[in-house]
């Protein structure tokens, strides 16, 4: 009776990974801190995309204080890959780059308008134009175009 109780207790303490993989969850299970039993779907998705052994290996090579972030980002990528098997989270990157491009264009147009006003009122508008324009020009080699995706790799 007590043995079955302890067995059931150890079974109920299994992390989502060990539960999914139907194995005993040891005390030093590397996945258990990051894949609690309360979120089984999270590990299921990660396992489907990356595989439990890959994830365990990826976490193992990291210092302990970075593993939580790594598990979080791995779960994020797995989630997006499950949602979009073709592009995964790379689609988000493409959308953001497009948004940056559009914002840069709009900013350039707006600054051209400001320059016109500066020509009329140099004392007020020039202080805005003269501010350093950081982060406006992105290195275009980092832009990800799905048509050129193959060439960038």
């Amino acid at each position, binding site marked *: 009776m007590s043995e079955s109780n302890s067995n059931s207790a150890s079974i109920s303490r299994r992390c989502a990974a060990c539960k999914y993989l139907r194995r005993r969850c040891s005390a030093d299970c590397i996945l258990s801190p990051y894949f609690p039993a309360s979120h089984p779907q999270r590990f299921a998705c990660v396992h489907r995309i990356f595989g439990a052994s*890959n994830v365990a290996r990826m976490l193992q090579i990291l210092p302990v204080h970075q593993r939580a972030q790594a598990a979080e*980002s*791995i779960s994020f990528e797995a989630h997006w890959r499950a949602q979009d098997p073709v*592009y995964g*989270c790379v689609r988000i990157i493409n959308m953001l780059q497009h948004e940056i491009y559009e914002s840069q264009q709009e900013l350039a147009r707006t600054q051209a308008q*400001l320059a016109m006003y500066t020509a009329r009122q140099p004392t007020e508008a020039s202080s805005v134009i003269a501010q350093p324009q950081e982060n406006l020009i992105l290195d275009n080699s980092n832009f990800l175009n799905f048509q050129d995706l193959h060439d960038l790799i």
Partner: protein
Amino acid sequence: MRSKNKVAGAGTTGSSASPCAACKLLRRRCAEDCLFAPYFPPDQPHKFASVHKVFGASNVNKLLQELPVNYRSDAVSSMVYEANARVRDPVYGCAGAISSLQQQVDVLQAQLAMAQAEIIRLRMQHAGYLAHLRLTSARGGGGGGGGSSATSSPKMMEVNEKPVYNLETEMDQTSMYEPMWSC
């Protein structure tokens, strides 16, 4: 004459095709219908190496099998991109790139908002100046006001004088309100 170099996948048919990068890494025979062969050519071993390291060959195989053929090339490219990002940054991977790009978007939008606000301010300032000019010309009939040259252009006056815009005196002059919104 038989070639001494036995290439995996050549088999006994004598085919000269070398195995794809995937089969080479996995050390297996590269079949004619190998799923990986179209996307992992033998001259780019690093592509499959990083994908295998992050996703695993069997997972990539499963993912590709579930996709229509015309989507597989893009899927492989995006997986290679994601795998390379993870190899470069084992903690954040692609999520780090997304975070960085989102920050750039925020910065650009803040700059855009500032620039647009400045345009609005300048337009209001310009509208106020025009209203002042009209009021001055309506009252005095002559050009220039006190002190400055009677023939000075509005542009010259803008440099030397700060336009005065008095709401109380201008309330009835609706023509002074130029359209400020270009959208």
